[in-house]
């Protein structure tokens, strides 16, 4: 086997090792990176900026731990944006671990000194409705009666007893819904069973793999905007200036993409150098 043939048959563990190095090394570096904000991300930011203080917003965390490294940063940034704009936040999850992930995000966000100073109260400024089984049927039920879909909150308290939820029966009073989604049920269900029926305003954050599936809805106007993957989270941090983990993780993503492209180039080079010999 010559050099090029050996390259074509390289053990995949060599590739894995180089990818690992590409992902880990940037954690020890801190160089500035340039993030250009794309129009779908800008659209979400602009819409939230226009909401008057006191408006009700909803965030549905439809993901679990595997997708959390990619989606948790955008959940944290979005919650921060909501609280800094003095919006009232209703949190829920259509996935069992979604509302737990939301609590984890809240813990991080509430450490911010500005938010600490606001002295936000659970039940008045924000609530976590927890999880209800039923996937898209939960969205349909919320459109008629949220109290029927979520009779108790994450802690087991009747939501009718929470001041924030007393005048909230359905989507009518909710100014904006943001869905953070890793699969099913997710943004697709929120668009088809939520926006199309009840006509509320919806923005979404998806994993990079799911984002292409959902991007047609931005074009059709069913979604106000879309944050796609880690890049979308980093763009939102850039536009809102609430810098968090996503911007830092983009360094690793940059290096790892470069490694993959390097291997693609090398692989094609080896392919062309050995093609004559094979035919």
């Amino acid at each position: 086997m010559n050099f090029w043939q050996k390259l074509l048959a390289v053990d995949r563990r060599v590739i894995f090792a180089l990818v690992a190095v590409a992902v880990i090394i940037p954690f020890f570096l801190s160089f500035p990176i340039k993030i250009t904000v794309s129009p779908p991300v800008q659209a979400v930011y602009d819409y939230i900026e226009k909401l008057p203080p006191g408006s009700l917003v909803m965030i549905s965390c439809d993901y679990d731990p595997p997708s959390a490294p990619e989606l948790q940063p955008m959940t944290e940034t979005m919650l921060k944006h909501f609280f800094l704009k003095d919006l009232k936040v209703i949190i829920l999850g259509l996935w069992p671990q979604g509302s737990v992930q939301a609590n984890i995000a809240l813990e991080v966000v509430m450490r911010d000194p500005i938010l600490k100073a606001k002295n936000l109260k659970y039940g008045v400024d924000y609530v976590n409705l927890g999880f209800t089984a039923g996937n898209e049927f939960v969205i349909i039920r919320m459109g008629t009666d949220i109290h029927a879909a979520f009779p108790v909150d994450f802690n087991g308290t009747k939501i009718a007893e929470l001041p924030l939820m007393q005048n909230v029966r359905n989507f009518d009073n909710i100014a904006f819904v943001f869905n953070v989604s890793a699969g099913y049920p997710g943004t697709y269900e929120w668009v088809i069973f939520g926006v199309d029926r009840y006509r509320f305003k919806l923005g979404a954050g998806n994993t990079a793999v799911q984002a292409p599936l959902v991007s047609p809805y931005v074009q059709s106007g069913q979604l106000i905007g879309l944050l796609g993957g880690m890049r979308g989270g980093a763009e939102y941090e850039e536009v809102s200036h609430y810098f968090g983990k996503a911007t830092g993780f983009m360094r690793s993503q940059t290096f790892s993409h470069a490694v993959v492209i390097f291997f693609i180039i090398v692989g094609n080079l080896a392919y062309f150098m050995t093609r004559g010999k094979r035919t």
Partner: protein
Amino acid sequence: MKKILAFSFLALSLSPAFSQVPAPATQVQAFDTPNDAGRSITIEWQISIDDKDGVVTGYQVLRTEAPEGEYTKIADSPRGTDSYIDSSPENHKDYYYKVRAVTASGFSDSEPSTAVQAMGQWFNRKRLNALIAVLIISGAILYFIEKARSGKELYIRKIAGIEAVEEAVGRATEMGRKIVFIPGIQDMDNMQTIAGITILGHVARKAAEYEAKLEVPVSRALVMVACREVTKQAFTASGRPDAYKDDMVYYVTDDQFGYTAALDGLFVREKPAAIFMQGAFFAESLILAETGNYIGAIQIAGTAQPSQLPFFVAACDYTLIGEELFAASAYLSKDVKLLGSLKGQDVGKFFMMAAILVGVILASLGVYDLSRLFTVR
């Protein structure tokens, strides 16, 4: 001085900002909210002329059940709004509405609406377009099923992934290694799972005929029950009921990556010769497909998750793309009725292509937005 003060006060009190009573909202209309289950009345009105100047701070919606009865407030609406949906009335009962324009220091009521009753509708007219589409497509499918039954030869193109099923099962038998069938990670309410299970039936029959070992690890308990039934029937139909064991089909976990870890472990330890991944998959698709590729198994995948198709195409030997997964059952069984339904699907596709072409032309000329006809509420 007193005269000046009095005159100033009079002038101020006449100015809109300090007027006690705003101009009322007008043309209040209340009607039963259409296309719903009832218990909903929509109230619309023309906003007060003082709304534009910022005098009116908001509106209150008032309701009574008797025309001369006392009106009670049922809702507040911010200024600028001209409609409200009352979701609390009882069906088949008369209600009357008024709209009260409110300022900081006064209010004025509109004329009352005429009597209105809430009621449910028997047909949601907003979905007429969906009904027509369903009738056209279903009609086409049923027509071609009937035509196929009458003996007409139907041409169906080759689907490489399905042709390779026998090859894969044969390979597993020759190598003395297992066949692993994964029916996706969703439950029985997902059509892809049902499509995967129908393919399992055919694969299980082939495995029974070839005396190959079959293993079906599943992610949902209900899917386990269905897969067991299908596999058992397949072995029985092949004349090998004794070869079927319940433990061929077993539950692993509902957790996506717990299931993936278990399958990866199975692949690396047992090194199956053939892996079928037919159903709904998400992020685990590439992990499974790459591991299968690494151990050298022949892999036939099929999914209707567009986001996972590229991973299967890149890592598997054969991939059933989207609707090919649903066509597989018809293809494998060669049942004329099932083949006829595929032809009906093609009519639906032709109808969509024609609509896209016409819509693009009309939109490019700025004549009409055809997408409005296809919006389902």
